[in-house]
């Protein structure tokens, strides 16, 4: 009887594994190539937008898992990357809804809330701690918009699609976020108008 039960359970597990493998739209090689191309960018986005390395790890795992379950009609890498970021953005938004608040780091904190122990410690990087503290003084949504626009190079339309906002709203919010960030940088003695000269 036990043998029968275990055989049945094994059969169920096998069928579950088969179902799991079929649930993914890409094979392992394709996924690995895609992950290698997008993993760091996604982690960096999640980390900088959320301000929490452990949360970024969790959300990245969940983002890729959800991404693998989506069936794309055409395997366009740029579209897939945007889709991945959209999933991550939705997860971030859910996280903010659950936690309600994302407390900014205290001014004396040297930006350490953004760093894992032994990893990405801002003080170990020259001149970055001030920028990180200025980032932490922004709202999560502002950090997200700035990162998408100025690091990922997303257009207003793409950001609107990612964040669920209207394109016009993105334009206004992005302008305000940029102005606020520039002001915060100024306050910390970092002149934001010297690039390109």
């Amino acid at each position: 009887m036990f043998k029968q039960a275990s055989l049945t359970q094994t059969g169920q597990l096998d069928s579950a594994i088969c179902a799991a493998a079929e649930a993914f739209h890409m094979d392992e090689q394709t996924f690995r190539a895609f992950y290698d191309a997008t993993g760091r960018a996604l982690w960096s986005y999640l980390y900088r937008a959320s301000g929490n390395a452990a949360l970024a790890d969790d959300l990245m795992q969940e983002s890729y898992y959800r991404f693998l379950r989506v069936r794309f009609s055409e395997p366009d890498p740029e579209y897939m990357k945007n889709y991945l970021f959209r999933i991550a953005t939705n997860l971030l938004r859910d996280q903010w809804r659950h936690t309600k608040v994302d407390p900014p780091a205290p001014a004396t904190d040297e930006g350490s809330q953004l760093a894992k122990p032994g990893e990405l410690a801002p003080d170990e990087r020259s001149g970055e701690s001030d920028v990180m503290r200025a980032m932490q003084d922004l709202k999560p949504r502002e950090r997200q918009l700035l990162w998408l626009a100025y690091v990922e190079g997303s257009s207003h339309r793409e950001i609107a699609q990612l964040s669920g906002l209207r394109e016009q709203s993105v334009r206004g919010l992005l302008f305000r976020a940029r102005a606020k960030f520039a002001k915060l940088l100024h306050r910390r003695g970092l002149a934001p108008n010297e690039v390109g000269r």
Partner: protein
Amino acid sequence: MTSWKPNACENEPRVVRCARTGFWDSELQQHVRECRVCAEAASIARLLNDMRRADDAAARIPDSSLMWRKAQFLATRDASERATQPISFVERFAYAVASVCLIAVCFWQWHAIRSWFAALGGSGIKLGSAWMSDAFAHFATGIDVSKLGTISGSSSVVFLSCGVGLLALCAFVAAYVVRAED
């Protein structure tokens, strides 16, 4: 080339692209010197991209094969959960039905249960007091515990309350099990 709007410039996307890549053409550099919006955008893009490069250098993200295996594990777990969902549902349903039946039987046979508890209470007290008398007599304490039998009339209420409490406890445990399954 500067836009008349104070908060927008048509060159901003190009400026941001150049700031991201680090390759500037002289015309755009000249524009950035004159346009406050583009200068600010370029500066912020440079700072943020420096952070991104620092992340690239320092962040330890999981290996792609590990990420693939984790995703497979999650998919297997989800598939298993989906496969066992009907069983879980039936289990929860059974717990709920059992709880409801128990409570319904208690209400339906209330008089029988009450009289049973009363009878059990009286005989129980008598048996208990007899046993205790023997026990105390054995240890020669001299306490007359046979007087405990006088409380047997009121003890039926106590036993009844205990029974109801027990039933309530059963219902609570059943509800807890159902909740824990969720």
